[in-house]
């Protein structure tokens, strides 16, 4: 059982996320092509490539996550750049100087991250955005009570949330222009959000 999340695991999480984005670049872009402008995979891949390049040395989890935020903000562009950038920025703040973090701190990270996305994008869950994966993930994590179970629950909730976007009509972002025609498509941002949560679980279980 994992008691604490270490800096090394956070680093692994970020690297894994970068690998997943590279692998799923075309897939995410195809999702965005259906209801957006066909760039989400390109954006995420470009962003996380830069993240990995700019990741600082050391174990400071707050510093690592802040570096993720800065790289995303300056390399992704589009809607996803500021949103994910703000997500990591808000989440990183209480973690500055910490080389390992507890369940409680990670739960707080998720909640801060979600709050950051909501604040920046003025959106709520149910509008067919990344929040539909992130909000249930954060809630499920907190409810599970410990790190391993929490991550498992978060991944499941994120996956379900991602799938739940399929029947939704988009009310935020580019997909909202399509109105009814945005239905029956999975939201690209919710999909990348699920991937980010999943990469964290993978990193933690590998480290265990």
């Amino acid at each position, binding site marked *: 059982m994992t008691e604490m999340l270490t800096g090394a695991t956070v680093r692994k999480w970020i690297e894994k996320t970068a690998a997943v984005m590279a692998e799923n670049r075309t897939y995410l872009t195809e999702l965005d092509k259906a209801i*957006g*402008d*066909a760039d989400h995979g390109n954006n995420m891949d470009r962003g996380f490539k830069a993240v990995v390049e700019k990741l600082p040395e050391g174990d400071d989890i707050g510093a690592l996550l802040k570096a993720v935020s800065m790289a995303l903000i*300056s390399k992704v*562009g589009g*809607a996803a*750049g500021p949103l994910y950038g703000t997500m990591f920025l808000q989440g990183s703040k209480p973690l500055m100087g910490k080389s390992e973090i507890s369940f409680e701190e990670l739960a707080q990270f998720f909640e801060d991250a979600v709050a950051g996305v909501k604040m920046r994008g003025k959106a709520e869950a149910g509008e067919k955005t990344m929040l539909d994966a992130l909000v249930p993930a954060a809630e499920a994590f907190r409810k599970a009570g410990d790190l391993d179970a929490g991550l498992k629950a978060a991944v499941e909730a994120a996956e379900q949330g991602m799938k739940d976007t399929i029947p939704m009509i988009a009310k935020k972002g580019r997909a909202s*222009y399509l109105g009814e025609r945005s239905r029956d498509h999975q939201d690209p941002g919710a999909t990348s959000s699920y991937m980010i949560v999943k990469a964290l679980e993978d990193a933690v279980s590998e480290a265990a």
Partner: protein
Amino acid sequence: MKKLINNAEDVVVEQLKGFGAAHPEIEVHFDPNFVCVAGGVKDRVAVMSGGGSGHEPLHGGFVGQGMLDAACPGPVFTSPTPDQMYEAGKAINGGKGILQIVKNYTGDVLNFQMAADMLRDEGIEVRNIIIDDDVALKDSLYTAGRRGLGTTVLAEKICGAASLEGYDLDKLTALCKKVNIHGKSMGMALTPCTTPQNGTPSFELAEDEIEIGIGIHGEPGVERTKIKSADEITETLCRHIFEDEAYTRKLSEWDVEKGDWVDTELTDITFQKGDEVIALVNGMGGTPVSELYTVYNKLAEVAGSHGVKIVRNLVGNYITSLEMAGMSITLQKVDDELLRLYDAPVKTPALRWGV
């Protein structure tokens, strides 16, 4: 995919290099990418814009005397990042503040706002006006709101002229908002376009289909129909523009007193008999300019039938979607102030008169 490019990952940089080589009066900066007037701005408000690439000549082609002071090009169809606007803002700051003209796409709005916050931290006054003139989208409550289309070009022209005339930041910000609520646009596509990164068309359209109410990022429009004659298509776009009701929505603005972003309610005008307008018939990139004149012909007729007088017109490629075939129509209601500023001299790569 057939394009005159070298490296799909690098098109924006290679195009900017050529742009810089062709226009020595404009400085091109890399990493972060932006273009700005050489020599900077002195003692007047600086005007900047930007957005995803692929809409050329917007915005870089409108940098120069009497229009934009700087433009920040993102990757193709992806909004630029805050560091671009931050560096551009520092380069053109002339001590009187900066007006950002931003097309209403979530990415553009968020990135420009973040840049505005960063510049403000440096002690530079920044205002940020969102252009949302696309009447194809009826509703702002359940969508990201109307997109920014051709009115952006006119806002850049008119605000650039006003800056030269000495408008201060408050007055210029109010002017830009005025242009926005007096402008209405709508577009359509005959064909999709292909971004260099993706290599395949952004959407599919059958050989006998067209898309009405298209944006400028290869995103699908609001209605797909069988192909129609130029006159019928023009009538459809005109109907949406002339019958558009007073559109009310909230747009984010910087509140100087509060020192925060606040949502301000704005209501567009509707066109009335007796109005004078500037008409822009804009090609999406792959449509021959000759066909745009067929559209203009019908537009002039329809405007006349509404008692609306076209006092100036632009027919050509101004805000495009790569090689998409199609067009958009923009009507901007003008008064003496807007017309004087529109007529003022301008010298940019893509728009030039009076100098």
